[in-house]
């Protein structure tokens, strides 16, 4: 048999701060973020990799944190919704979602924000089709998506205007 330990130490940079924790290998990244680090802005929705509420950025890419083990993210850089606000100032995406009514109940919003952030990093001036394609893995049951798309367009404009 192997000499694998029951727990493993992981070191992950979360929102710019390096954290070290002993974790069980079966711990999901979303639970690591929510339970171990108390960053409860990242939500668990369907818990089956469908709804996208748990979307975070790992090493620059949007991923569903309910379908990744914390040990798989060892050594990586994680950005959660808590990392968007800087010095008390909402991120332009958060500002735009607020102004354009891009949310109602808000449950899907952290995931929507993180997927939108990944989109704008890659494509600063996305078309409606680009936005719809990029948010296809994020489900919203309130808004009908129209205002979410408007929010992303508005944020893109704000970011471009600096």
């Amino acid at each position, binding site marked *: 048999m192997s000499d694998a330990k029951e727990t493993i130490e992981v070191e992950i940079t979360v929102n710019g701060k390096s954290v070290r924790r002993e974790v069980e290998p079966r711990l999901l990244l979303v639970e690591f973020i929510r339970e171990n680090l108390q960053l409860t802005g990242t939500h668990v929705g369907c818990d089956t990799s469908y709804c996208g509420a748990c979307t975070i950025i790992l090493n620059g890419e949007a991923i569903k944190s309910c379908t990744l083990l914390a040990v798989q993210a060892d050594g990586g850089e994680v950005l959660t919704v808590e990392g968007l606000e800087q010095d008390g100032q909402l991120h332009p995406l958060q500002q735009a979602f607020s102004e354009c009514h891009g949310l109602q109940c808000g449950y899907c919003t952290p995931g929507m924000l993180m997927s939108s952030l990944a989109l704008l990093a890659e494509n600063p001036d996305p078309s409606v089709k680009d936005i719809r394609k*990029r948010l296809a893995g994020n489900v919203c049951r309130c808004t009908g998506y129209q205002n979410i798309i408007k929010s992303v367009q508005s944020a893109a404009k704000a970011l471009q205007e600096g």
Partner: protein
Amino acid sequence: MYPQPFRYHRPNSVKDAITLLTELGEGAKPLAGGQSLIPILKMRMDEPSDLVDITRIPGLNSISTDNDLIRIGALCTHAQVAMSEAALTIPVLRDCAGGIADPQVRSLGTIGGSVSVADPSSDWPALLFVLDAKIVCQGPEGSRTVGIRDFIVDSYTTCLGDAELVTEIQIPQPPANSGGAYIGFKKAAPAYPAASVAIQLTLDDAGKCKEISLALGSAGPKPIISADAEAILKGNKLTEELLKQAAEKLVAESSPPSDARGSAEFKQEILRSLFLKTAATAINRAGGSNIDGTHDYV
């Protein structure tokens, strides 16, 4: 949802991974992107004693092309394949890779993992059937190359032996005047397709069908093929009437399960029209048309 407890290992070479898997025995499973395996573990459909994470092994995540072959490392993500140079020249690769689930899943899920799981609803198998792909496997006995049609044995079953891993997927370069298309039908991006069709064909100078390969996905325990359907089309001008006849043969061979994605009858109806739509794109591409993607799931 939590999986059952397991031990976790992270080898740095294929050799070490095979040694570990051999030592740990049949309770051990390799882990790549995890986009199939982790849901399986969370639903407790499998309870491995050990996971051997192969994602940090160097050398398995590049795509190279030469005159004969496209070689895709087993750890290439779907997103990576969709945006590759190879997908520019063979757009059917982008149809398939760029249409799997959603952007988040495509960033993690790997082509090697997908074929190893051999989920009958997954996208890669039907496409790899028509592209005549070969799967390079490495195990305790060394390396071997197996055609995809022999590699996928049944639903969730491959010919992989104990401690054997997929290391590369090889796709022959299609000859001139070839075109292909892949379309999956699904209700929303993150869902598995209710039905899918893969077609690869080559036209001759007169515009007749020189070679054709067809496969249906999500339509049985493994991709459905039909020599009868291909025989109807080969050597002929691909008229709508002939394509409809071939579709009937192909659909007759299918056995889609009735489930949450639709009844068997509904899926067969979808397969018929999906076949004609996919064929039209493949024919246009073989004729030189630049058709970017076949479908958007939004």
